[in-house]
Each structure stands twice: as structure tokens, then as C-alpha cells.
């Protein structure tokens, strides 16, 4: 079980919880604005872009090469960017806050 907070570009904040699946699926299930997940979660579209808190980045683990490359499609890419379809919902992310990039 993990509770996380999404902060959207219009400064809305939403706390959601889940226990399985990807963070993208959790965001879509809760209608988080700016998380589209057009490709259904196979790291092919870069429409689930979030910023992770710097302190949390290492805890989640490094993105794979394909994810890092796909992030370059988005002009808003930053040092602590992730595609949240590649992040599993688990205790690891419990309590974290994610800023939606678009």
C-alpha cells in the first residue's frame, strides 16, 4: 500500500493510494490532469512525465536507458524527470510527492 501526492501544473494537489500496478495507471485511475499514458504504459509515448523530489530520486531507482531517451522527447525534461509508467506502486514510494510536468 502506498499513498502519494500528485501536484498538477495548475497547482492542484491530489492524494491517491494504491497497492499494485504502475504509478501512471494509478494517476489515470484517479484522473490526475497531465498524465495521459497514451501508449498504455509501455514507455513509448512520454505522456506520463513527472518530476520526483531530488531526495526521493535514488530511492525509486535509476531509469532504464529507453526511459531516459524517451524523456528527451519532452521539452520540459529536467534532472529529476521520470516517466511514471516505469515506476511501480509499492511501499518504496509511500509518502512521496510527484509534480506533473505538463
Amino acid at each position, binding site marked *: 500500500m502506498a499513498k502519494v501526492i500528485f501536484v498538477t501544473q495548475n497547482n492542484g494537489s491530489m492524494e491517491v493510494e494504491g497497492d499494485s500496478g504502475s504509478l501512471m495507471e494509478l494517476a489515470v*485511475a484517479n484522473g490526475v490532469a497531465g498524465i495521459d499514458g*497514451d501508449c498504455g504504459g*509501455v*514507455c513509448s*509515448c512520454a505522456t506520463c512525465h513527472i518530476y520526483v523530489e531530488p531526495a526521493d530520486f535514488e530511492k525509486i531507482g535509476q531509469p532504464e536507458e529507453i526511459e531516459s*531517451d524517451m524523456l528527451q522527447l519532452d521539452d520540459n525534461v529536467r534532472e529529476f524527470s521520470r516517466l511514471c509508467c516505469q515506476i511501480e506502486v509499492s511501499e518504496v514510494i509511500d509518502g512521496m510527492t510527484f509534480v506533473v510536468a505538463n
Partner: protein
Amino acid sequence: MQTKDEALNLNMVIIGASHAGVSAAFNLRQQGWKGRIILLDRDPQLPYHRPPLSKKTLQSDALVSSPLKAEKAYIDNEISLNLGQNVTSVDSKTQQITLANSEVIPFDKLIIATGCDAFIPPIKGLSDTVDETGVNRFFAMRTYADALAIKSALTNSKDKQVVIIGGGYIGLECASSFIALGAKVTVIEKQSHILSRVTSHVMSDFLTQLHRDKGVTLTTGKDVVEVIHQADKHIVVCGDGTQYPADFIIVGVGVRRNTQLAIAAGVDVEQGVKVNAVCQTSHPNIFSIGDCTEYFSQRYQRWLKLESVQNAVEQAKTVAQFITGNLPTVVPDTNTVNQTIQNDSRPNTQEAVPWFWSDQYQCKLQIVGLSDGYDELIVCQESAEQFSVWYFKADRLLCVEAVNLAKAYVLGTQAIKHNMQVNKSLLSALDTELTKTSLLIEPVTSLN
């Protein structure tokens, strides 16, 4: 100018609740559409992603559907979702649609997002492919119900022997999933190469070898002429007399655009519903988006019929922005579709670049652009499992196909999107580290 109350009373009807229709509904709300949104689909399932059907849905033990949006999201956005509803007619004069249950719904604006159905070829005996209890044993892969039926057929088959007619993306993705599930798979392609309509010999040969290495019996240049039923087997017979026994059969030989309702409405339809740059048909209050449409591409200077998530999503955004008056620089002229296109003053760079993907085995194929009309291709080999194919017409990059190499896909996207020129000599040199600064030179000033 509408008053607030008038805006609230407007009816937006969207026929088709797959990626295009659902995206349009949510975009309309985001863009400030105040009236009703009535979203209809004949499929009873909560609208879902289709691409995973041939992959995740087939391969996982659970019954997995990947919803596009949570049910609650439709309620929160006041989108009236009507599933399992067949629309039988559209009257463009009275501006109303009729459902199979005789209900009549008036519309102020209509969006036709009816997509495609699988084309079932008229092969002798194919439609009689049923098991001993009369349960269907030939399938297309188009809907969630199809995926469940195919899973069930595989589970209940004696020898897990499957024949796939058609070596297109759907057929190949199914083949990959069946192999993962321990099935014996045959793919029969009519053309001399698989994917011959959409890619080059390079990619076709690579995927052919990949599937054969994984154990697929993949044949090309063979026409299926008949299916014979013997005891509990279905024998797929080719024109040259070869026979392939199957417990069940998958058909993946292309699609038919669902244009019947658009035709009934009297709007311009050729192979697809013809739309202008803002997805408007030849009727000013009837729009069309997604797989069922065709539009004139400024970028490619021809009519395009794209079957892709990307096109569905882009057109949904465009139509929502246009209807709500939020599209910045467009000159719509509703007299005829062709006039509109000539009057369209949007710069080329605003037109979305088509992109596609396909996952087979551990192989991730990503495609940006359209390769039709290329006169040169350059293969850039990174490693045994990673390479990209770059398609050019003279100096202009048309398309990049990348296998397990998102970097090449991203560079190709940037080059095509911004009309950058690619340094071909660097590209063709093996072991070149692909980077934006080394590879992409300058904007190409003249497009055509």
C-alpha cells in the same frame, strides 16, 4: 454570441468511445465546453487501450483490460457514457441520431469516431471454423471480447496449434504472445514479405528472422484459399496445396473503416471520412476523428489514413480546440473540404508527426514518420539487438524505425518535427554515437 444558458443546452454527441472519442470528450471539457457530452459505443466494456490486447491482455493470466479512464472520471467530467449502444442512423438535416433501441438523440455538434473493424477475407470455409460444440474458432483481434475469446480458445485447445493469416503488426504481435504461452504458431503472409505495405525489406527481414528464431513457422507469398474441417482440426489450405492444421485461426489481414454512419449522414467519404485540418467533415456541424478518417497532410502532401493512437489523440485535441474556439491560427472554410485545405494557413511544423510502436518478444520497435516514397535508406547498427533504419527522399528525412533504440527514435522525431537535416555521412558510419549536436544540422527551408 451564445448566452450561458444556451451553451449549457448544447448537445455534443460522440459516436465511438475508443481512444479518439474518449480523448475528444475529456478535451472538450478541459477546453471549456459547457453543454452536454453524450459518448456512445457499441462495445459494452469500459473504454480501454487496444494496443495491449495482442500483448499484455493475451499473455497475462488475469483478465486484464487497461481502461483509458476510470469510470469515476466520466462522472466527474459530466460525460454521459452510453456503452453497448448501436447507432443505426444519422440525420444531418434534422441533426439527430437514432439508436437501435429507437431512442432519438438530437445533436448540435456530432463527432464520428467509429474507427475500423477487422477485414474478414472471403476464404472458403473460414466462417465455418467452429469447434464440436459450435463455438467459434476463428478470430480477429480488435476488441477486448476478441482477446478474451482468443485466450479461451488457446486454453481449451488440445495441441495449442494456431494459424495466423496475415503477417501484419497485429498478426506478428499475436504470434509473439502465443509463443510466450507455449503455442505452436504458423504465420501465413500473402505478399513476398511481411509488413510489405508499411516497411522496407530491412525491417521485414529482421522481423521474419526474429519470429523464425523464436519458433514461428512463417511463410510468405502464399495465398490461403480454403479452410477444411476435419474432426477437431481446421486445415488451412494454401494456393500451392500446402496445408497447416490449426486448433484455431487468427485473421489479421487489414481493416475496413467504419464509414457507414458518415455515409448515411451524407458527408464526403472516400476510403475514410474526409476531414479538413480541424477534423471537420463536409457538414459544418459534423466532425470525424481517429482511424475512420482521412485528411490531407501538408507535411506529406497527400491524403493520409492513419490507424494509430497518436493520430486519434492529436485529432481529438484539435477538434476539441476548434469547437471550443481555442485553436489559434486556423482559417476554416466550410464550403468544401478541399477549399478548407487550400485555405489552411497553419505552418507545417504544427502538423503532428505520425508515430507508432510495436512490441514483439523482447524487441521494441518504434517508428516515427512515414517511409512511403523514400529513395534511400541508411541502416545504423548499434549492436546485434539494437539498430535503426533512416528513410530519406533526397536530403529530407521521412521516417525512422528504431529497434531497441529509443535514442534514434527521439532524434528522428526531433529532425522530422523541426525539418532538420541529418548528417548522412555520420549516420552511415558504424559505431557513431548518435547525438543531437553531431547528427542534426540545420532546418531544411524548403519542404517539398
